[in-house]
């Protein structure tokens, strides 16, 4: 017993024993390739190369993006990476273990399935897929090929969760304890510290323009329907078009909602109803919305408050029959403030440990904390909202069959045919 040090040692030092002192055996070092190096794929968090995982290849359909990213890699890691124009060349590159998908969402499903079929593990940016059907196919392909998949948002296991002011862990403990009662209502709103970026809207009346020579627009579109080129449809602003993403909801939705799904314990199901309050949407260019309300079969609700419809400043982030949690983790139980809440929470068992080291998961073949299954479910929340917005009506959903109830038009949005011979086996 190292008496004095026992508590200090609680902060566990990460294990770093690969290949002995300072030497990394090549077989122990994983490799990755990034598809899409325009925006997020080039951000410092992802554009990394280190002892545990080396960046070996990049792919982009815009030769300017590709060349400048290759130059950046040369400058930062001192290496000449393999550059690819066609993502299939990257996926089939035998030197790559992990395919990192950082393209616009309309590509995520196709690339994840193909990477799995090619035997690669997958790191995929949010939102996971553009449709509910594509998500189902990704789940199947990952299972069939026994791959490790990470959907990349992380608040269910680390970092201060926006308006909460803490990580999600103490909240998970509080919710699990039942102290707040049940069912719970969660309000994701500017008023609770979760801003929706309504900047992501599309433009109507786009006048076609010539495709710039460095861009392979046909490949950029890939499975998306052909529409004449306009720069606003692509790089940095693609989020504003239904063909590629879901606007502000697509942008931040899964980021904000995945942790909610986690602490409500809804990883294996989906809401049964989505209600919207929004202006009519344009069929191509995404607009704003005011409020989206999701209801689960046990009465739990998630309310998204959007443009101009944020509640007054003091609304609870979570509200249950017996208690409320406000922004900054201020808690009220049975109508009274509970300033000692953290000590109360400390008495409750920690949540089940989660596998949060992706590289370790790949090596040990353990499922990552946010994987294809729970990631698909939290993406369903986003895609249910998208369907309701596009049809301008409330929808009911069957979480088991993952189809809308008595709504043929809504169900036609679940499996949207793709352009070209992209099929999700």
């Amino acid at each position, binding site marked *: 017993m190292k008496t004095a040090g026992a508590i200090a040692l609680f902060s566990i030092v990460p294990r770093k024993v690969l290949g002995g002192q300072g030497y990394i055996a090549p077989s122990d070092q994983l490799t990755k390739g990034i598809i899409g190096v325009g925006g997020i794929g080039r951000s410092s968090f992802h554009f990394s190369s280190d002892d545990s995982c080396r960046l070996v290849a990049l792919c982009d359909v815009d030769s300017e993006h590709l060349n400048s990213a290759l130059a950046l890699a040369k400058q930062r890691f001192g290496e000449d990476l393999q550059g690819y124009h066609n993502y299939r060349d990257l996926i089939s590159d035998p030197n790559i273990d992990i395919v990192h998908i950082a393209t616009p969402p309309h590509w995520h499903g196709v690339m994840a399935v193909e990477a799995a079929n090619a035997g690669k593990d997958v790191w995929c940016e949010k939102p996971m897929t553009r449709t509910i059907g594509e998500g189902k196919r990704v789940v199947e392909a990952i299972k*069939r090929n026994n791959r490790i998949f990470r959907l990349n948002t992380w608040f269910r296991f680390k970092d201060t969760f926006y308006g909460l002011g803490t990580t999600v862990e103490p909240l998970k403990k509080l919710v699990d304890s039942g102290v707040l009662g049940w069912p719970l209502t969660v309000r994701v709103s500017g008023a609770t510290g979760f801003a929706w970026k309504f900047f992501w809207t599309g433009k109507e009346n786009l006048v076609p323009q010539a495709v710039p020579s460095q861009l392979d627009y046909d490949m950029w579109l890939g499975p998306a329907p052909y529409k004449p080129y306009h720069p606003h449809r692509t790089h940095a602003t693609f989020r504003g078009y239904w063909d590629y993403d879901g606007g502000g909801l697509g942008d931040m939705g899964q980021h904000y909602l995945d942790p909610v799904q986690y602490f409500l314990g809804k990883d294996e199901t989906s809401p049964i109803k989505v209600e919207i309050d929004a202006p009519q949407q344009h069929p191509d260019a995404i607009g704003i919305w005011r409020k989206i309300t999701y209801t689960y079969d046990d009465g739990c609700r998630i309310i998204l408050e959007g443009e101009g419809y944020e509640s007054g400043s003091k609304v609870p982030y979570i509200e249950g029959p017996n208690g409320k949690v406000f922004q900054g983790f201020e808690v009220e139980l049975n109508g009274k403030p509970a300033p000692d809440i953290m000590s109360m929470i400390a008495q409750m068992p920690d949540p089940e440990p989660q596998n949060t080291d992706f590289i370790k998961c790949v090596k040990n073949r353990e499922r990552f904390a946010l994987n294809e299954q729970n990631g698909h479910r939290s993406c369903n929340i986003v895609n249910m909202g998208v369907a309701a917005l596009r049809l301008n009506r409330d929808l009911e959903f069957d979480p088991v069959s993952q189809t809308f109830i008595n709504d043929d038009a809504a169900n036609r949005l679940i499996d949207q045919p793709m352009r070209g*011979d992209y099929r999700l086996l």
Partner: protein
Amino acid sequence: MKRFFISLGLLLTLAGNAVAQDARQRTPQTIVADVLAEMPYTQKADFDSAMSDLLSTGSFGVTQLAGMLVPADQGQNNRVEYALDGLVAYSSANADEEQLAETRQGLKKAIASATDNANKAFLMKLLSNISRPEDADVFVSALTDPYLSEYALSGLILTPDTDELSLGLISQATLPKTILARLAGAKHLVAAEPVMLGWLRDADAETATSVYKALALAGTAKSLPVLAKAAAVEKYEWLPTDATASYVSLLNRLATNPADAKAVAKDAGALMKKAKNINVRTGAMTALFEAEGAKALPVLLKAMSDPDRQFRMAALRSSECWNSDDAVVAVAALAKKDKTPDVVKTDIINWIGANKYASQVDAALANLDAADDELAQAAFTAASRIGGEEALSALVAHFDSKRDIKAMKALLSFNGDVKDAIMEALADDKSTNMRGCALTVACQRRIKEAAPVALSLLNDEKLSEIAYIALPGVVAPDNIGTLCQLLETSPASRRGTIQQALVAALRQLPAEEQYATLSPYFEKSAKPELYYGALATTGAPEAVDALLSAYKAPSTGKAAFEALLEIDSPRMIDVLYNIALGNDKSNNGAVLKRYVAMVDRYGKDNIDRYNHYRRGLEASGTDETDNLFIGKLASTGTYGALAIADARIANPATAAVSAAAIRSIMSKHVGEYRGEQARSSIVKATDYFKSRTNDPDAGYAVDDLKGILERFDADAATAATPSSKLTPEEEAMGFDLLFDGTSMAKWTGDTTTYIVRDGCITVGEARWGNNIYTADEYGDFIFRFEFSLDRPGVNNGVGIRTPMNVDAAFHGMEIQILDHDDPMYADIQPYQVHGSVYGVIPAERVKFKHGEWNTEEIRAEGDHITVTVNGKVILDGNIRDACQGHAVGDPGEEGNHYMIDHRNHPGLFNKRGHIGFLGHGAGIRFRNVRVLDLNSK
């Protein structure tokens, strides 16, 4: 709903012949024109009603609208697109079969007559959202069109009940086979299998790929040999044709079908041996396990000796579909055998833990002492996940081992209550390790029952250190006396921990009892400074006062100051502000940071926080706190914050945070803050980020701001032309237009809350007291304006004959503006309804519709007040008569029994004053505001 005639020249001829307001009486042309003029609808009810009208026009409306589509470079299609897409979406849920047929018919006609490819594709997409089998010919005939074929194929795939038709196309094979194969796959056309298998005999690679994928989705066991051969040719690699993936996919799909189980098992077993690629081997195994069920247990057990971890883990996971206890038992047995390699045991234990196989917890427990650290860790984690008595005692027993830390960690997330076991371990006075670990966990888990043990061990030779550290975690309010005594007597080195414990114990009391419990000890102590931290915890007014006076004394100043910064209470906002204003500014950095934290927590709303941050910024004095405040101001999103950031961006020390503030405020409020000032702020921020050439993220900011500026300019261009102007009669009478749709020049007061947007005065995040006033004063007048209540429950008011910045209802008059039918106003008094002279004369109730414009006239001549809304007089009264001349009550009277609201209205008989809008919140617009001064006439 107001209905407009469409201004598009195209439609003028259509719109000329009808004015009726009812859909049943309007001609279809008028309905189309009306709907188009209102596109897009912002409210669902309006949308539904308009679409219902449009639906009533049958196919006519669709063809009319579609006929207006022009090539994208020759005009703007957006409103037509909104209308058609809206109609299709509405029809898909609300139309009966007959109406739906009309909509579809219209779309088909429109597709036939459309000439522009992009528009044709758009219409085809719309049809495919609601298509029926009768529409399939439209899609079939476009399948070979170079532009439209993909839209056509999608449409055909989405159209229900077209299997026979599709089969016919496939059999004829006059269309490209790649397209037909996609059709077969997407529709899961099993009957197409023989035809497609035939195609493979002389297919090129592209066709073959398409067919393989189709077979994966629509094939039967008959396709297995073909795919097996094709995959073998490619050596089970992924490319070039996808044959391997198609093969594995088909195997897995058929595996769930009992009739195919045998064929699948045979192929999958062979594939597992032949393929090298791990995902193919495991994919075959997954199919095999599904097809054979637990019969495949020997394969699973054999897989456990495979050298590849991927293979082992895939085997374990694939076996989960069996739900077989026998399999779990057999696998778990391997984890207990000595000769099983540690890596294999690790996989098994991880798997048992992930699935919480409680019956096999002993396999995990058997490996807690494994020499291999990774295996041992897997065992501890699995034991923790599974829980149960057995696991609990095994974990606690490991307190006395070299795996003590693993054991403690496992207990923290243990699946079940650990308290009794911890208390039992604490009672074990023979093992120091046991008690040390138990105390540690007790502290983390706040097990109060452990407090007596912890207190008794404070002087223990070996456990003293841990006992002290654990103290704050285990104490309860009944330990407060003991803790205070300890505090007085302990050496300085221990005081910090004891103070923490005292704070922890106090916190468990209700807030109002904390100070009373602590004060006896504090007051009688010779060393009161020992209690400052605990005092701060209570947050009580007495505690604040005590600390403030201690702060002023040189000997205790520093300690008291630190404690003051710990107090968590809304009162501290002013206390800290005053400290910051004081003579000693040396600690202002810390003071203002705490001030910000308190404003963050206790500010009532964005306006309140804005006011606090702004005065904080004025008191700041250092770049660091300046930047802190500017950042915080940005988070309020107010116009004032924008103005401050604009003013500070020129200073290099605050430029970065000011630019970020402008970016964040304008990204959220670009549609709202529209003046030249706001535009220039955007430009300044853009210039700032452009200058940051070495910052890779600055490029994103520049793009972002560029988009904001584009939106800003687009909004400005599309903003409705101000509709505010005087009528010729008003002009002749001498009315003064107080608001012309653009300028607030004739107004004063809170022009950051009342802003100009789309030709209206719009109220931002107002709360009570955010008012604007006419620059001039008026005595007798006619005040006319239009207003729209845009949100349920809106509350505002017109102050008349009022001084500025007072409560006009009492120090002048307030003519109420209120959405009085909102349920939250169910209990209001008659003298509070819209149009009332508030508290003095009730008005007749008016019905309002949200989002519609209402006209109002307020006429004040001497004591005579008239209010007219939407042409109807709702109040006509004399303010002097209403209270028998008593604006205030009798001498000595509390209140005023003459007045209907029993209150004093000292300003009721003011001769003149400002006219103002009195804000209570957002959701109202004003326009066409004008006044006639009757005194100057």
